[in-house]
């Protein structure tokens, strides 16, 4: 078999093999059981003591949410402060200026909500201080927030009746000290061995072999890129993200980055199985997610390998595939694989440029973000999937005439309303944003921020809101998005697209946890079977098709038919 396809298979299998034991470990961390990182305990307890936090105090779902939202608000103010003043602050060897208020608003929210949409370029837009003390800091804590909230929901799914759903601060701290920090250190060291820079010396001047003078941006890249991927953040140190040869120097680092961004979302599924002692349920969820993922990734890899038919007409050798926006050291298969993986999980880092993908490959990237529950981001991926489980349980309960129950709890009107609102709000934000942008700017021939005309131009706008709403952060980067309209509107979409899909599932889980536990009987709808898996998949497909098909027809599908 061809070495490029073999590389892709290696990346998937390696992640899966690592994710199962790692999921077991995460479950132990949530349980508070013994693990080999227990030497961190005195440090964690010391931090809690200084902060005046009682990490043993059980909180209900509302208290957990309030503590999460409060600390997120503090981070937002802090990030705004740094970004708007970075030009005046020290640790800025390249003398980059402070951000405008609207750009700072967008960037602060973007990193706060684990989205990492970047309307600036890393080389010229942020100082070293902002990279390390603002953006990288947010990459750590926003990922830990997602994992901690998932832990609260896992806790609520147990077989009992309770209001006590653990302690947000406790889960948050342990996600950082027991999961993200140790892994980041390991990954950063592997990166540096492979030649990724880690320096504070600013731009270097070189003279090329041909005699041109060139400035080369460097920086503390390795530390940043490690957490960028582990936390499914995706915000690049450099403008071209993981396509930049300093941010992803070779095929080995490409594999490491791929595994790093995929491992926590995958391990969280298995952690659920170990935590609830329902391994079959975890495998069912994994099966549905993987089926969805494969349906997106395989056609994308095939289309990219075929290359651009318009260039094929010119008569050159097309065997490398669609190489516009791709790097030789990764090749087409590994680039196409990355482009779908980064959109199904909410990383949004790129090693090739999505704007130049074939029309239907671009559609698959958007579909991955519209569903946003095939694996999904750090912790929050399961929350999105949980909403689909609730809807599927309810519908199948109605179909076979059984009381809709999930894990021994009855699902009633209130929970269903929340689940439906969460799904609909996402479709509203995404399509509403695009519709507004088209209405306001449509027909304006003086637009400078649209890089491509016609159907593809529409796709660029649709992609931007899809990415913002899914907290993904990748882009059809041709869109010149550092304008007042794009900064403010995507900022609002990002913040709603983060917190509504967190508050909704936590509320549902909290309400269900309070209900009476009904032990399984012959009349219970089994939720860990293949049949139910197919049911969830059908629900996801129908909801997605009904919500997004018309919008996709106007963009990528129309573009596809214009060349075929």
């Amino acid at each position: 078999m061809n070495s490029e396809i073999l590389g892709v298979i290696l990346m998937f299998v390696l992640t899966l093999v690592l994710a199962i034991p790692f999921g077991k470990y995460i479950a132990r961390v949530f349980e508070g059981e013994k693990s080999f990182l227990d030497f961190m305990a005195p440090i964690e307890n010391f931090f809690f003591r200084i902060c005046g936090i009682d990490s043993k105090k059980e909180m209900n779902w509302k208290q957990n949410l309030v503590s999460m939202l409060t600390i997120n608000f503090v981070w937002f103010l802090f990030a705004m402060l740094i970004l708007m003043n970075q030009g005046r602050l020290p640790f800025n060897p390249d003398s980059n200026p402070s951000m405008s208020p609207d750009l700072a608003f967008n960037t602060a929210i973007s990193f706060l909500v684990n989205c990492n949409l970047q309307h600036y370029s890393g080389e010229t837009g942020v100082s070293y201080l902002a990279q390390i003390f603002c953006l990288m800091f947010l990459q750590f804590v926003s990922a830990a927030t997602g994992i901690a909230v998932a832990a609260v929901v896992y806790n609520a799914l147990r077989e009992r009746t309770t209001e006590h759903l653990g302690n947000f601060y406790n889960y948050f701290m342990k996600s950082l000290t027991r999961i993200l920090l140790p892994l980041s250190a390991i990954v950063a060291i592997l990166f540096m061995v492979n030649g990724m820079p880690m320096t504070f010396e600013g731009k270097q001047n070189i003279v090329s072999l041909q005699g041109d003078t060139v400035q080369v941006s460097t920086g503390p890249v390795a530390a940043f890129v490690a957490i960028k991927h582990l936390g499914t953040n995706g915000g690049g140190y450099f403008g071209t993200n993981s396509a930049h040869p300093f941010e992803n120097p070779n095929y080995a680092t490409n594999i490491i980055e791929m595994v790093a961004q995929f491992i926590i979302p995958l391990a969280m599924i298995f952690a659920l199985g170990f935590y609830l002692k329902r391994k079959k349920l975890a495998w069912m969820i994994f099966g549905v997610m993987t089926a969805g993922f494969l349906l997106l990734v395989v056609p994308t890899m095939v289309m990219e390998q075929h290359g651009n038919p318009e260039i094929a007409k010119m008569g050159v050798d097309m065997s490398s595939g669609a190489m516009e926006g791709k790097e030789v050291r990764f090749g087409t298969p590994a680039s196409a694989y990355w482009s779908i993986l980064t959109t199904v999980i909410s990383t949004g880092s790129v090693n090739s440029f999505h704007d130049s993908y074939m029309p239907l490959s671009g559609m698959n990237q958007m579909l991955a973000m519209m569903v946003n529950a095939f694996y999904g981001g750090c912790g929050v991926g399961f929350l999105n999937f949980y909403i689909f489980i609730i809807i599927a349980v309810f519908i199948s309960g109605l179909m076979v005439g059984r009381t809709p129950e999930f894990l021994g709890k009855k699902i009633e009107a209130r929970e269903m309303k929340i689940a439906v609102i969460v799904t609909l709000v996402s479709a509203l934000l995404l399509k509403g944003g695009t519709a507004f942008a088209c209405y306001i700017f449509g027909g304006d021939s003086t637009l400078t921020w649209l890089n491509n005309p016609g159907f593809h131009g529409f796709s660029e706008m649709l992609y931007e809101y899809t990415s913002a709403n899914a907290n993904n952060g990748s882009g059809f980067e041709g869109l010149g998005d550092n304008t007042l309209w794009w900064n403010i509107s995507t900022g609002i979409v990002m913040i709603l697209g983060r917190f509504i899909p967190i508050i909704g599932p936590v509320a549902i889980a909290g309400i269900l946890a309070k209900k009476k536990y009904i032990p399984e009987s012959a009349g219970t709808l089994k939720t860990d079977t293949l049949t139910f898996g197919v049911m969830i998949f059908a629900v996801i497909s129908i909801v997605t098709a009904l919500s997004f098909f018309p919008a996709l027809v106007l963009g990528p599908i129309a573009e596809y038919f214009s060349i075929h």
Partner: protein
Amino acid sequence: MKTHLMPALKLTLICILVFSGIYTVTIWGIGQIVAPNNGKGEIVNYVNSKENLKYGFVNIGQSFTSDNYFWSRPSAVGYNAAGSGASNKGATNEEYLALVQSRIDTFLIHNPNVAKSDIPVEMVTASGSGLDPNISPKAAMVQISRIAKARNISESKVESLVNEYTEKPLLGMFGPARINILKLNIALDALK
């Protein structure tokens, strides 16, 4: 909200100290030992056309446009390593397709012995970073006859150089084979 505000503020300060401060400095310190060139990026020395001893970064591609050198891939930012970038042109963009056509024409003019169907597509399409340090072995092969002629050396000599500088897939099994364009061109200059 109020009861959570003070703990949130204090916890934020501690997290900044640990994850931005201690983590970053620790990684940097380890980098001083394990990373090539103390974490400043791997470099390679050369004597450039002005006969000065200079250095470049192994991983950062450079622009090569002279007939004497193996050409690097097209770049949307002209190999500006202080502002990386892709073209972000859509597959059906007319303006973009015209640009690709003109790159094919230029390639054919400079490489008259090459058939159009032998030009690898990556030599007429721009990379993602604009700093691609590699070309494929095929892309080097089609340039051999031009370089041999321009430098007045035998084609077989250039070809053996290309073979020598072709890097195999990872562990011989994973990913594409490739050539570091800067290293290959330095070796070409050393060839007498």
